[in-house]
């Protein structure tokens, strides 16, 4: 047998009897719950979407930077070097005019540099260059002696960037081998010493076209400059956004006092600069995008924080109104229950129990309504469907939160009607007979 002696039984019977009142209350809580959960879902989707955008753009940026880095490296490889270290007393105007230094420094400088642990230069190339009259051919050329690259000992060994010229060999620039009709394998005389042509360069459109490269030691002997060089080419400088030419210059002159550092290979540096600028710009754009998304999020949050209390208030008032209507309709019932000896607390439980059920039902459905509307609004606002991305535990927690919050809302809204019902004097009600 069903027991009307149970308050919950009576609550359920009353709900079944006054379905419309209950449904309207539940709908109201549903709307409030949906609005709240929907706002949370929309903001959550916004955050996820922002995350996706940032990740995507970040990836593209990294790819682009990697491509640029590769491009810069290739450019540097083609150009052969980035900077030239010259004796400090070298007049730059003279150097630019001649294309080589007329002052000298000890060859040992290059070894000192290689052992110094400088981290921003990978290879060093000591050279001795001088314009000479090629007595055998009766023409002016630039004779360049080079020892081949000296790896930076603080770095892991790498493939040489410029091949050394073996002793007894000579490499000829384009104009020289073309005009003298020389080819690889030919033996020629230079300042009374025989050299075998090991390589003929293609046209470069620069001073290189009239340059002949031989081993440094042989050049020092031919030019009468034993143990001296007039330039060190610093190869494959690490042209990162963190490294400036000023820093490079500062480091090198710190190791080799009495030298100066000249930038060469400006194309590579320009590319590095471009890359650096692009990276800075792209990161700034990314940051700006992030800030825009943040501003948008704040705007949405502000809107939600304005709208949600309004919706909650409206729904609460509506529930309170329905509660008052319900209490009014149940005056007779309350009167007779009180006449039987039912206490005010029990009457309060009859009403609050109903609001609790209203809250649970509204909160439960409101949770799913909010999730659905959140996804839908997320679609409208972000232009694509996104999952809210909550784990099962978080979903359950949010569901419980929605149910608890909705029950609290319904309970608070129904508190006054319930209290009024409790305080109704049964004598007043029954006197009306």
């Amino acid at each position, binding site marked *: 047998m069903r027991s009307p002696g149970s308050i919950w039984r009576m609550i359920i019977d009353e709900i079944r009897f006054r379905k419309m009142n209950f449904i309207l209350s539940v709908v109201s809580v549903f709307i409030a719950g949906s609005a709240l959960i929907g706002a949370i879902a929309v903001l959550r989707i916004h955050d996820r979407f922002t995350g996706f955008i940032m990740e995507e753009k970040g990836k593209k940026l990294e790819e682009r930077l990697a491509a640029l880095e590769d491009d810069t490296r290739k450019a540097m490889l083609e150009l052969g070097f980035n900077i030239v270290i010259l004796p400090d007393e070298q007049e730059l105007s003279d150097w630019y005019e001649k294309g080589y230094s007329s002052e000298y420094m000890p060859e040992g400088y290059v070894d000192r540099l290689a052992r110094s642990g400088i981290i921003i230069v990978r290879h060093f190339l000591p050279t001795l260059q001088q314009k000479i009259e090629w007595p055998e051919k009766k023409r002016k050329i630039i004779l360049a002696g080079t020892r081949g690259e000296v790896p930076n000992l603080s770095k892991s060994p790498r493939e040489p960037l410029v091949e050394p010229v073996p002793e007894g060999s000579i490499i000829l620039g384009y104009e020289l081998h073309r005009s003298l009709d020389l080819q690889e394998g030919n033996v020629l005389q230079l300042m009374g010493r025989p050299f075998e042509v090991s390589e003929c360069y293609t046209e470069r459109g620069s001073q290189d076209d009239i340059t002949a490269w031989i081993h440094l030691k042989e050049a020092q002997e031919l030019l009468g400059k034993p143990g001296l060089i007039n330039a060190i080419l610093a190869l494959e400088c690490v042209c990162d956004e963190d490294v400036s030419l000023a820093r490079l210059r500062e480091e090198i002159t710190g190791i080799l006092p009495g030298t100066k550092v000249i930038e060469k290979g400006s194309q590579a540096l320009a590319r590095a600069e471009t890359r650096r600028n692009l990276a800075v710009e792209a990161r700034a754009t990314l940051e700006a995008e992030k800030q825009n998304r943040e501003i948008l999020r704040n705007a949405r949050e502000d809107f939600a924080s304005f709208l949600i209390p309004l919706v909650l208030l409206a729904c609460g008032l509506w529930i309170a109104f329905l509660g008052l209507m319900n209490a009014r309709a149940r005056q007779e019932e309350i009167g007779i229950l009180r*006449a039987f000896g039912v206490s005010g607390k029990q009457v309060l439980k009859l009403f609050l129990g109903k609001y609790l059920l209203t809250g649970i039902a509204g909160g439960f459905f409101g949770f799913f309504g909010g999730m659905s509307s959140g996804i839908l609004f997320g679609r409208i606002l972000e232009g694509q469907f996104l999952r809210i991305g909550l784990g099962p535990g978080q979903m359950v927690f949010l569901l419980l939160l929605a149910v608890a919050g909705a029950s609290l809302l319904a309970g608070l809204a129904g508190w006054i009607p319930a209290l009024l019902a409790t305080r109704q004097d049964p004598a007043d009600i029954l006197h009306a007979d």
Partner: protein
Amino acid sequence: MLVLRNINKTFHVKNGMVKALQDVSLSLSGGEFLVIRGPSGCGKTTLLLVAGCLLKPGGGQVLLNGMDPYNLDMDHVNRLRSETIGFVFQQFHLIPYLSARDNISSPALASGNPVMPGRVDELIRHFGLEERAGHLPHQLSTGERQRTALARALYNDPGIILADEPTGNLDEENAEILYKYLRQFAADGGSVLLVSHDRRACDYGTRVIGMSQGRLQRSTGSYVGAGSG
């Protein structure tokens, strides 16, 4: 069982005061069926509510089983009322969403005790409601509703029934049935205090007192009906 001594009750209304009860005294013992007769507005319902511990009098004393309910705390009053008094009203006041059966057992809510199905079945049989026990009040006839209300009043096996115009909405046949039930209740040792303007009630009461303008009419030897309509 129930004693009212020099009860006064005044209501303050817009245009002044209404003296609903003036120096009302009566006593009600087991086996008595006391009918208070009087016209509408003479204070009958007020008297019943005061007797039922629902309306505190302005003066005088109410004793229910020797206790003054108006000097007890609310929990005690509720318990006392629940255990001692059964109410029957003209408007029945059945709970609309409970079936006749559940209405009958609804006083169990006050006592906090589980419903006694045997007691409910007994009352349903006693009042001839077997066929209608599962119906909601709006599905019952007026006579069935009042019988349900009476059965509900008897559920806790009270010593006293307070009835306020219980036949006001009933036809003659159903009114007669109700009076017979009340008379039987009194004959079984219970006490009935019935207030009504219905002349027929006098035929069933063991004692009849007239009431007019908040005062009980006194007659020789006992309180007797004033005979007014």
